């Protein structure tokens, strides 16, 4: 059997949004499975609408398919209606290109963008007829690998994944492929075990079955390599120059609507603003900008090829891109002869400069503008190192309302380290002040404050912090609800505190969490990112059964001396840098961006001999975020300029 399309098609009239399962995207390849080629199934373990736009998966899809000895197809988690039919009809998980059963691929590769998808990983394996445990697979079964941000603490999935790729995937995927392809070509003459041993020698590849976890009095104390040649620590991979990777070249254009349904161009990777809660900003250092002329070419070619009328310039803080003003102006004015084009800038910095750029891109549709001050008081923002002064925020909001926007959305976190009720209530106060500013310009001014429960993440200065309990988060949300109820023009939105608890245990759990993930899946707990399918009691019941609790795994502050479940994963950051930054946080000391100021020796650059690669040696206008920090020394700090590559 090489395709299940006829069986699948006969069921499609019975499911919601059948177009999710047909493939046929512009940019998709027509797979040719030749003898001797190694086949990959790239799986995004959430719905098609969420997974299709994922840039990481699309980049690997192209890199693999450019190789003559590889073929890569894609798969997404089928929604629950189709899953029920697949189970009753005996239909396996399939690729969307040729509708080939998952078990017929040589490699199954999961993208782990978030932790709550872990149960879906098990479900996808099981639907594919592949044993969910790494230990249960033999030479007949696909090699199961995973990568993505969440893989920086691989332990909760260690029992299920044969090998993790840590860090940037562009180069790691080729190295990984070569080891597996040799094994496949040899007719799998060597054992699966020896192939996995070999994978251990590839930089950035972590093979959990080659390590033995140690526990003392119910606490994880470390991992020991089981064999000679298995490294004690696995160093993440990092691509030095984004200019060498202008991927995806052929971004997939789906036939049905998906999230971020537009042309997405990554303008830089990494961020050194140094927000202490932000895992992405820590593990993707240093800053590597794409040269402005390459951005321009990718936008023009992409618009012409796809027919999209919207471009997103993506990064962790797009206003920091050296070429931002030119890129925006040229796109809006130039446009590749494809009609009106709008530009969207996710993750806007909070200052008037940024609003000026937003005004350029949204000439017509000025409905809402979103900022992320993250915390309600200056004290709290120094603790999290999101150094936005009140004047900055009010300046940005004033600027937005005066230029015709009528709605401003503000993102906040609650449950941050040492947060007092005064800090929590600062959220309401900020929102109210913003409405007042807006009223001077329009009586329709409204401000939405969206509040999420803070989840401490591995490889951040807050990795030692004990997460707030569900009750405490709910109490804080309750305070804000009470306070904003009578604030005219202020809407409060909040994230389910129970989902934050589950995310917390999947984020910082050690290897024992695997049994919990498995049990939640066995109890039917798939699609945990979807509120209609999420139930915290499934998680707490499973934890209790395995002798674990939210108190010890999630809510407890960790000590400096304590072994962390991800200590063997080297994300480029020195542990003492993170600890010092944690102590600075508690002392309410902020640290300016290191891109244009001297180095803090976090380890990200020095360890691998690379540097920030930016288009300009001086910060962009407004780049200090109004904190008054002196960035005029920009140009004296050695950076590699993207325009001056050797």
């Amino acid at each position: 059997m090489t395709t299940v399309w006829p069986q699948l098609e006969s069921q499609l009239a019975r499911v919601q949004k059948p177009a999710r399962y047909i493939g046929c995207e512009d940019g998709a390849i027509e797979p040719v499975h030749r003898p001797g080629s190694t086949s990959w199934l790239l799986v995004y373990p959430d719905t098609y609408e969420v997974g299709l736009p994922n840039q990481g998966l699309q980049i690997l899809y192209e890199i693999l398919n450019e190789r003559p000895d590889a073929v890569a197809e894609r798969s997404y988690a089928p929604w629950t209606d189709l899953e029920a039919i697949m189970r009753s009809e005996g239909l396996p998980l399939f690729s969307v290109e040729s509708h080939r059963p998952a078990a017929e691929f040589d490699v199954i590769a999961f993208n782990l963008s978030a932790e709550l998808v872990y149960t879906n990983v098990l479900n996808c394996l099981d639907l594919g007829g592949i044993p969910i445990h790494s230990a249960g697979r033999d030479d007949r079964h696909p090699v199961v690998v995973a990568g993505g941000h969440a893989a920086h603490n691989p332990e909760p999935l260690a029992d299920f994944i044969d090998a993790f790729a840590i860090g940037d995937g562009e180069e790691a995927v080729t190295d990984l492929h070569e080891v597996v392809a040799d094994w496949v070509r040899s007719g799998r003459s060597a054992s699966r075990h020896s192939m996995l041993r070999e994978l251990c020698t590839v930089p950035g590849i972590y093979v959990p079955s080659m390590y033995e976890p140690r526990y003392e009095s119910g606490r994880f104390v470390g991992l020991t390599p089981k064999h000679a040649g298995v490294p004690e620590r696995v160093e993440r991979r990092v691509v030095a120059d984004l200019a060498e990777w202008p991927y995806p070249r052929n971004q997939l254009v789906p036939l049905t609507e998906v999230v971020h349904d537009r042309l997405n161009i990554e303008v830089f990777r990494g961020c050194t603003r140094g927000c202490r809660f932000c895992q992405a900003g820590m593990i993707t250092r240093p800053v590597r900008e794409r040269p402005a002329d390459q951005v321009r070419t990718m936008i023009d070619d992409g618009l012409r090829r796809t027919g999209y009328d919207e471009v997103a310039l993506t990064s962790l803080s797009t206003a920091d891109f050296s070429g931002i003003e030119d890129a925006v102006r040229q796109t809006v004015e130039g446009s590749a002869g494809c009609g009106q084009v709008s530009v969207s800038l996710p993750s806007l910095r909070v200052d008037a400069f940024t609003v000026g750029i937003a005004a350029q891109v949204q000439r017509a549709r000025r409905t809402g503008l979103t900022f992320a001050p993250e915390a309600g008081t200056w004290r709290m923002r120094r603790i999290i190192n999101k150094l936005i002064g009140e004047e900055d925020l009010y300046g940005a909001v004033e600027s937005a309302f005066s230029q015709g926007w009528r709605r401003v959305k503000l993102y906040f976190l609650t449950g941050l380290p040492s947060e007092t009720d005064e800090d929590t209530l600062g959220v309401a106060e900020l929102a109210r002040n913003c409405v007042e500013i807006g009223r001077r310009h329009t009586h329709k001014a409204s401000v939405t404050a969206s509040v999420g429960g803070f989840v401490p993440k591995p490889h951040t200065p807050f990795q030692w912090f004990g997460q707030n309990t569900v009750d405490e988060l709910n109490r804080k949300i309750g305070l804000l609800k009470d306070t904003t109820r009578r604030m005219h023009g202020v809407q409060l939105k909040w994230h389910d505190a129970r989902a934050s608890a589950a995310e917390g245990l999947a984020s910082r759990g050690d290897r024992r969490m695997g049994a919990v993930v498995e049990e939640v899946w066995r109890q039917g707990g798939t699609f945990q990112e979807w509120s209609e399918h999420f139930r915290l009691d499934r998680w707490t019941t499973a934890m209790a059964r395995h002798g674990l609790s939210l108190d010890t795994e999630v809510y407890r502050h960790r000590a400096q001396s304590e072994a962390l479940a991800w200590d063997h994963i080297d994300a480029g950051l020195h542990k003492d840098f993170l600890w010092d930054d944690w102590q600075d946080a508690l002392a309410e000391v902020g640290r300016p961006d290191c891109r244009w100021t001297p180095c803090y020796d976090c380890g990200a650059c020095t360890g691998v001999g690379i540097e920030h690669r930016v288009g300009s040696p001086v910060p962009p206008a407004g780049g200090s975020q109004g904190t008054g920090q002196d960035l005029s020394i920009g140009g004296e700090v050695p950076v590699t300029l993207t325009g001056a590559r050797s």
Partner: protein
Amino acid sequence: MRIRLRFTKLGKVRWTSHRDAARLWERALRRAQVPLAYTEGFSPRPKVSFGLALPTGAESDAEYLDVNVRPERDVDLSTLPDRLTAGLPSGMACTAAVGLDPPVSSLQQVVTSCSWVLGARVPAAEAERRVSELLAADSVPFSRVRKGKETTDDLRPAVRELAVVGNHYTEGFVALRAELATQPRAVKPIELLAALWPSSGDDVAGWPLRRTHQWIGPSDAGVEPITLDAPEESYAPARAS
């Protein structure tokens, strides 16, 4: 100026919705660099209007849309279908383009009936019997939900033609040809199948549907929104995959 386009929707792409097809068309029009006219105001949209919605899962040889283009720019209608097809997914092809000058009424207003080839998972003799019974009946009441309320309507007046025409190209199905009125009240092909075989229940939802023509006036007059020059194919041409 307004341009009317005719297109097909065959094979896997039939699983896209009417709304999906509209988005596919907007991108294809931009890729072909058609100088679209945009609406005025707060949130400009290209002026594109689609004809009668095709049910998700149904195939078609005869879909239409009208697009408004900026008057100052010339559009080469002879090359337009091929340029548009190049930007559409496999299974969707633009088969004709004509200028509408002066503008005419909208597709929804002018189309009076559609011809379909339908598949029924029943024995051929059973199909013949039920078709004869339905055609002989003075009225065929059926219930449907309109504006949130279940109402009973008569299906019979909308059935202009109905015949068993052999085996369907989908294995295990008998092929029917049907012409169903779209005015004053449209009857959907699935409503016809459900009325013919009420005992088949939800299974009917998975039976193959294919729109072959949209008619303006009586079908024997042969007037379509755009009539193709090529000779008409038989009811079951080779299936696009």
